[in-house]
């Protein structure tokens, strides 16, 4: 198992975002981590990628504990965040180049790798343009290309295809699937697009209100719930009610930033 989580919890004061969850991910597999808004998906990814410290529990990531040996753990994964993390003042090429430098990719191959990925996401024609001039979809494509640049052993994708059209989604998933098969890259992703999860994932875990409510292959989940599609199974497992989610810290910051700007 390349990822093993045991009794993981994360509390923010009185609020328990992740509540005693355990699951594991096989090396070279594609794993979907699903759940309604505010279920604890992003918090879990942040803990796995060393951006948050867990309140309790154990994690093993590619054989090491990211809490105790964060630097080694960071070498093993790549991540595409849910929120933007590009430097808007830099060009597409410079953003990729900086990522390559941070991950110690040799200069000899860096330029060629960047070109290959930018051509793949159809941004090579605009690689000299500042990212601030890009549309939301273009930025997303660039973030995905950047996440793939250092060929990580584990690839975390937090809502990777959010805001992308079906053509681009298909294109990107084909590349990820190909990389997964050729290089045995483990893919751990979250999505609200359940068709995508059903089509791509070999194993799925569903989290709701911080707890894992079920896990298994898409087929197993459908059989267990006696539903014809993963979406129906998901709704049966998590309920029909829309989550009344208070604004997240990120939402509040976006608002404050807008107020500061004006």
């Amino acid at each position, binding site marked *: 198992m390349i990822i093993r989580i045991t009794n993981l919890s994360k509390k923010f004061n009185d609020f328990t975002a992740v509540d005693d969850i355990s699951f594991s991910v096989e090396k070279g597999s594609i794993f979907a981590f699903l759940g309604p808004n505010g279920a604890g998906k992003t918090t879990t990814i942040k803990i796995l*990628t060393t951006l948050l410290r867990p309140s309790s529990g154990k994690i093993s990531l590619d054989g090491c504990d990211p809490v105790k040996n964060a630097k080694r753990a*960071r070498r093993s*994964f790549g991540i595409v965040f849910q929120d933007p993390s590009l430097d808007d003042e830099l060009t597409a090429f410079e953003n990729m180049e900086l*990522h390559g430098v941070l991950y110690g990719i040799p200069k000899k191959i860096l330029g060629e790798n960047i070109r290959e990925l930018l051509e793949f996401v159809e941004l090579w024609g605009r690689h000299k343009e500042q990212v601030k001039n890009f549309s939301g979809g273009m930025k997303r494509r660039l973030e995905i290309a950047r996440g793939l640049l250092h060929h990580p052993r584990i690839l975390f994708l937090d809502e990777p295809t959010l805001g992308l059209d079906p053509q681009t989604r298909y294109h990107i998933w084909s590349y990820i699937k190909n990389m997964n098969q050729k290089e045995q890259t483990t893919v751990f992703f979250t999505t609200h697009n359940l068709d995508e999860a059903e089509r791509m994932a070999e194993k799925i875990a569903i989290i709701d209100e911080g707890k894992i409510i079920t896990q298994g292959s898409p087929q197993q989940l459908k059989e267990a719930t006696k539903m014809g599609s993963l979406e129906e199974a998901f709704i049966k497992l998590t309920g029909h009610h829309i989550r009344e989610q208070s604004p997240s*810290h*990120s939402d509040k910051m976006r608002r404050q930033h807008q107020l500061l700007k004006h």
Partner: protein
Amino acid sequence: MGSLCHPLLFLVALGFGMGDIYERAGEGDYIIFLSPGIIAMTTVFSSIFTGVDVIWDRKFGFLKETLVAPVSRLKIMLGRTLGGATTAMIQALIVLGITIPLGFEFNWLMLPFGLLFMLLIAILFTALGTTIGSVIKDLQAFHLIMNFVVMPMFFLSGALFPVNGSSDIFRYILHFNPLAYGVDGVRGSLTGDFYFNMPLNLTVLVILTSIILFIGSCIFSRIEA
């Protein structure tokens, strides 16, 4: 360029508004007195803004990308501090350039010392801003820090009015204000008008910068996004 408006407003409004009164009081040319203070002000505000920008950047900016990279956070903190300090220095140099046609005369031979003090102020306050930005998670708290820490520090630094002849309380407070040593360093180097002296200013700023960089690095290494 927007960030240069504030210091220029101070320079023009105070420099020309108060210049006559200052001169009639027998204190000399106010532009010569005020310019180093405004240069220090530019450096401080630019530095602290860059530092506090960590709050936003770690959530929605490139910093998040660096926090998950296999690079030591100490290096990220130092790189960020030096980057912020460079921006602050460039802005301060632009303001210095603007003060010259407005009547600021200084000793060009002492300019390297003036630049050294500007650099120390820039590093100290970028590191301080980064440290504060690593602790607080709320952009609103930033306003509180600006209003209750940075602004009083600036007004009580001797940047805008001479310390000699001011009240005993003000002069007492001045000794505990790190910016006062920076302002005095810049002014003293460029105009020869020291309130403290160069070795003391240098010692205080170097020690404080080292302490803040050390504390900041420890706090930054535990930053969460």
